[in-house]
């Protein structure tokens, strides 16, 4: 799973966003150790496309999104947005790109300033860049608030007077008001009720068409990602596992981790008992000392000695389906979760505390 490699990147200049070998590390203490949050992710998003990024908590999804925004800038790697290399920009030059690259956050409450009024919050981007005169800005704010389903007459209220779903609408309005080309949605519906999730997802879809947006959609909910994405990237512990169209990915996952994620989707049938053997066991290893070779090997039922020694590289196993695994799943193969990974028991020198619990 350790998938590095960039074979899945599409040739040509059609990609609005092209990220190569993105590495983000957070140093801890002064011992030279670091949290390897993202280790060599490559991805590309074509103009008008939606890329979904899924993975469990702590796998580096959000960090990837923020590294694309240069908040904070990645340790190494290339982030090419609309023909501009963002990692080479600093200060004012980077600031000038910002309004074309926006972000929607997970927590609608935390992402809105409780002291400011809705109208001010939404207008902030226009005020910063002094787009148009006062009337034009207010007209734009009205238009955007209306577009996200909020009554502009409520603009004088403060965020705490609205529900979570409405706050997320305000966040979306704030993100689109500067007419960006790319929006990174960092788990935009995870904090919402299921009924409200659907409304927000539909709204994002509307916004995408209305403003011609390209979207990177980060989530841990496979069902959500399946519905909105043109292409899905599965991440585990800072590495790419599998990249494919959602239909391919859900119909015939190739990576054991993808298979495990799909098996973990709850079945809406009260008569069916949750089958513990279908749930992936163990914990995510420490990102400070990630396992050698394939990072998933400590939890992978299919792992072999090779997985500990050699890091798999992304390769195309089906047309447009890329997987980083030495032993990808065969069609129709059932994963035997009872069998804990063999790779887990292999001790490799210099392997840290990332091995078996």
């Amino acid at each position, binding site marked *: 799973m350790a998938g590095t490699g960039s074979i899945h990147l599409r040739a040509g200049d059609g990609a609005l966003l092209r990220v190569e070998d993105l590495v983000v590390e957070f140093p801890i203490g002064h011992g030279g150790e670091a949290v390897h949050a993202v280790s060599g992710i490559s991805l590309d998003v074509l103009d008008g496309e939606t890329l979904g990024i899924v993975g469990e908590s702590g796998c580096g999804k959000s960090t990837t999104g*923020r590294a694309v*925004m240069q*908040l904070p800038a990645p340790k190494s790697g290339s982030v090419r947005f609309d023909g501009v290399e963002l990692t080479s920009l600093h200060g004012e030059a980077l*600031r*000038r790109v*910002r*309004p074309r*690259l*926006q*972000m929607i*956050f*997970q*927590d609608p*409450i*935390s*992402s*809105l*300033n*409780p*002291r*400011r009024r809705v109208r001010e*919050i939404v207008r*902030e*981007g226009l005020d*910063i*860049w002094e787009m148009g005169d006062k009337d034009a800005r207010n007209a734009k704010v009205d238009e955007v608030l209306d577009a996200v*389903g*909020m*009554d502009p007459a*409520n603009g*004088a*209220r*403060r*965020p*705490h*007077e*609205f*529900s*979570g779903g*409405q*706050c997320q609408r305000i*966040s979306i309005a*704030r993100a689109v008001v*500067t007419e960006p080309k790319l929006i990174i949605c960092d788990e935009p519906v995870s904090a919402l009720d299921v009924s409200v999730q659907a*409304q927000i997802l539909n709204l994002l879809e509307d916004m995408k068409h209305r403003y011609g947006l390209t979207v990177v959609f980060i989530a841990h909910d496979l069902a959500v990602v399946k519905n909105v994405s043109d292409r899905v990237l599965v991440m585990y512990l800072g590495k790419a596992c599998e990249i494919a169209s959602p239909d391919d990915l859900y119909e015939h996952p190739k990576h054991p981790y993808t298979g495990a994620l799909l098996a973990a989707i709850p079945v809406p049938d009260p008569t069916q008992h949750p089958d513990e053997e279908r749930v992936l066991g163990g914990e995510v290893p420490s990102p400070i000392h990630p396992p050698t070779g394939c990072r998933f090997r400590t939890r992978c039922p299919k792992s072999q000695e090779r997985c500990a020694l050699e890091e798999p590289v992304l390769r195309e196993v089906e047309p447009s389906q890329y997987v980083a695994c030495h032993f990808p799943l065969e069609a129709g193969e059932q994963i035997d979760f009872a069998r804990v990974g063999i790779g887990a028991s292999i001790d490799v020198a210099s392997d840290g505390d990332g091995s078996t619990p």
Partner: protein
Amino acid sequence: MPCSIPGFVVPERRPSPRGGAPGPGTGGFGGPGAPADAIRRDEADPSSLAFEGDAGLLQVDAVAAGPEGGRRRLGQGLNVTAWVAIAWMAFIVLIAVLAKTGLVTWGDPQNSIASCASKGPFAQGGSAPGHLLGCDSIGRDMIARLALGAWESLLVSVGAITVGFVIGGGLGIIAGYFGGFVDTVLSGMFNVLLSVPAIVLALALVAFLQGSPENAANSTLPDWFVLILAIGIVSIPLVGRISRASALSWSQREFVLAARAQGAKSGRIMIRELLPNVAPAMFSIALLGIAIAIVAEGTLAILGVGVRPPTPSWGNIIALDRGLLLTSPHIVFEPSILIFLTALALNYLGDVVRTRFEVRESGI
């Protein structure tokens, strides 16, 4: 449309989910005539109209937010104690301004009448006729001196706290927002200032600003200015540490990240995103700080570096005649009581301000 079943009346609408206080149509918990009222309210309350679909939900939310949506009137909901505290402060400020401007006079604070010296309202040896609160050790009218002293005390304390809050608060927000090296330097500076006992630091600052006691009389800087700077500088690290801590926690919030993602510069983020959140807590501490600064001025006066006589301040009235505490206690007690009541009022108002400006994070 009203959701009442015949023979069964819902006397109360549910309290608005994010209103806190119930809306105007929901007061009165079922007194006489409540059922009839309830039906009327049902008809009038639009929140019972629509429960289906997205639009309906939004509409309900908007309505529910209604009663509390607008600003509350400034004085609304204050209790009696708060009003007493406000009245006291207004009284003191009014007296001070009148005494300073001379619009209303209570006699000349410098006019000394030998026959009245040290005589208080109930003092031993009889009271001083015509002087309701007595006279000080050289026969100056206490009311006139207390009134003008209020001006000096308030000027010094409010000025000092303003200096402390503008500089300390500003540096604190900068330290909290930038963190890292900037924070290390600024916090280090605060800690160095805090490591010196406050009163010693204030004494040193006064001495530095005024020069030696012999030169002090020739100093070009007015006393109040020197004291404002001295007490203000002493308060910088105290305020700075509080605003730093507050700014540090607020700057971790995602709305700050969102502002940066939109291209806001650091200055804009600090002023527009952090300051409105840090300021209310700081403001309530500022009110307490004024009370502390009044006392600090008195302390400095006792040490001989406060507002210099003959100009009165509450502090130096106490300082000058503290030797007469046993024979003429009124001279010390009168300004002490004023300081006590003013500090009490400011303390209480600080609490009121803090609770009033607390913003609820969310209705859910």
